[in-house]
């Protein structure tokens, strides 16, 4: 909008009309100027709110900006805890003369918490009615936390004529209070000041609430980080202990296994059948124990990232035949049908740690044998989309759908595993998955449900 300077100084008969136009333009410009100032302040507060993340820092910066913009004596914040009915002061921004008075003879208003806030003579109105409140006498505001005489002297010294406070609301709940110390009466505040305060209290409430949430998140993250570090430490200690204990157990077991084998082979002379049967139990038990110890050692190596994989080219078909040949006696001992089938393929060559893959295939077939009381075990190998797929299907105890996702976790066994009188650590499948995945393969299980058997799949890349 423009004002014509020539018009302004004109002295022709149209002067009244020109004056009326100028006045009208002036009023419109005034409205725009007030809106501009309010928007400018809101923009400043918004910028502060996105740059400051800590509640106290944010409160300090916002308070300082408002204090300087309106030249109030004091701008401060209280955080309100509804459960404790407690107002906790946050940083207060003070005018120069209030700062000076504070250093000389401060009632330390900004350090005092206000208990029983909802029953407080001044703050109760804000908390209970969620509206602004103002008071001429600062004793009515801080009389519960400071000496009345001192407050009166302080009020005179710093020229505070009115305390004005607004609730900071989030979802219609009071989360805090913003408080202004004025050198004028509330009624003497100009329109711009009143409108601005109305506009920015909501913005401040949201900004402070966001900062509070951020701080809580920071604290939670810090605690989580500490707990995580402690857990990692404990986990490492556990793995070290596991490794140490397993090694200590395996050495004597090797000796037991060696001597029992020699006994059974008659190296120390013929034994009676009764003694031979007992030695056979010792031999079986020690082998079982060696297997368990080896699983513990595998877990320990995996957990500590010490598992080594020796990559070589190998023939998957030959490997499957090798494993199934070794396990056939176990299948026959349980009078189960054992079927091995291999689909024709151009090549059965793969690259990986042959020993580990053999261990995995063996473990999975062995599991099927263990958990199948009657029926059959079928092992099938095929090559599809450049990958080998080994499936081991059985007519065993089956698996509930809800159990499938956790079956490959540590110390997990099928729900009905105990019914088969099979002992196990619940580590075999965990070790299998870790090894296969380390070799860029996949292992998974499907089952129609409890009592309906299961199919385990091992997918390996081809060379």
């Amino acid at each position, binding site marked *: 909008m423009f004002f014509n300077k020539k018009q302004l100084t004109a002295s022709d008969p149209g002067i009244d009309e020109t004056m009326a136009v*100028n006045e009208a333009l*002036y009023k419109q410009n005034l409205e725009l*100027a007030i809106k501009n100032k309010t928007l400018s302040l809101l923009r400043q507060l918004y910028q502060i709110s996105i740059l400051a993340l800590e509640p106290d820092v944010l409160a300090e910066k916002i308070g300082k900006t408002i204090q300087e913009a309106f*030249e109030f004596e004091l701008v401060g914040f209280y955080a309100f805890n509804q459960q404790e009915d407690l107002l906790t002061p946050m940083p207060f921004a003070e*005018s120069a003369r209030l700062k000076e008075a504070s250093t000389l003879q401060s009632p330390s208003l900004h350090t005092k918490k206000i208990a029983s806030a909802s029953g407080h003579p001044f703050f109760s109105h804000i908390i209970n009615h969620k509206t602004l409140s103002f008071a001429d006498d600062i004793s009515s505001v801080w009389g519960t936390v400071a000496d009345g005489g001192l407050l009166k002297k302080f009020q005179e010294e710093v*020229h505070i004529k009115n305390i004005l406070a607004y609730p900071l609301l989030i979802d219609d709940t009071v989360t805090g209070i913003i408080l202004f110390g004025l050198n*004028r009466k509330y009624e*003497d505040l*100009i329109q*711009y000041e009143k409108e601005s305060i109305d506009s920015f209290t909501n913005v401040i409430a949201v900004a402070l609430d966001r900062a509070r949430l951020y701080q809580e998140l920071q604290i939670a993250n810090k605690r989580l980080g500490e707990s995580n570090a402690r857990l990692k430490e404990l986990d490492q200690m556990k793995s070290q202990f596991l490794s140490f204990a397993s090694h200590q157990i395996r050495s004597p077991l090797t000796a037991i296994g060696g001597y029992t084998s020699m006994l059974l082979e008659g190296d120390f002379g013929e034994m009676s059948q009764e003694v031979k049967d007992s030695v056979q139990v010792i031999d079986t038990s020690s082998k079982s124990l060696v297997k368990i110890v080896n699983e513990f050692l595998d877990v320990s190596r995996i957990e500590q990232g010490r598992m080594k994989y020796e990559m070589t080219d190998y023939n998957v078909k030959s490997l499957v035949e090798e494993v199934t040949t070794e396990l056939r006696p176990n299948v026959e001992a349980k009078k189960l049908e054992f079927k091995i089938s291999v689909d024709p393929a151009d090549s059965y060559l793969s690259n990986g740690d042959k020993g580990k893959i053999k261990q995995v295939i063996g473990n999975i077939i062995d599991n099927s044998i263990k958990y199948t009381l009657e029926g059959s075990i079928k092992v099938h190998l095929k090559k599809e989309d450049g990958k080998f797929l080994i499936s081991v299907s059985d007519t065993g105890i089956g698996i509930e759908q809800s159990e499938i996702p956790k079956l490959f976790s540590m110390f997990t066994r099928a729900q009905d595993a105990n019914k088969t009188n099979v002992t196990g650590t619940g580590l075999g499948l965990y070790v299998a998955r870790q090894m296969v995945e380390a070799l860029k393969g996949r292992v998974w299980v499907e089952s129609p449900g409890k009592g309906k058997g299961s199919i385990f799949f091992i997918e390996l890349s081809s060379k």
Partner: protein
Amino acid sequence: MITISNNINTKTFDQIPLRIIKEQELIIGPIAWDEARKVSGLTIDQIHNLVSFSGDGKDIIDRLVARYEKLFGKASREVCRDAVASIIADMQPSEIPISLR
């Protein structure tokens, strides 16, 4: 630091015309400075935001307010009052220029 005593602090009083001009500038633009220059006794340094008096300060401020009022009506007088509300709040009534009371 702004100090307030029973007497008018000169520095604070000097701020009154500057506040008024800057507030008017927000509404009417650079004309606010041009018009202020026409008030006798008031020396303006717009570049450095400095205003000084020669003569009766209260009278000069009254003439400045009157100049704006003459051009833009009563609303401009209210703007002048509002611009210095926080300053005159600390002054004795007798120290406040009549136009701003």
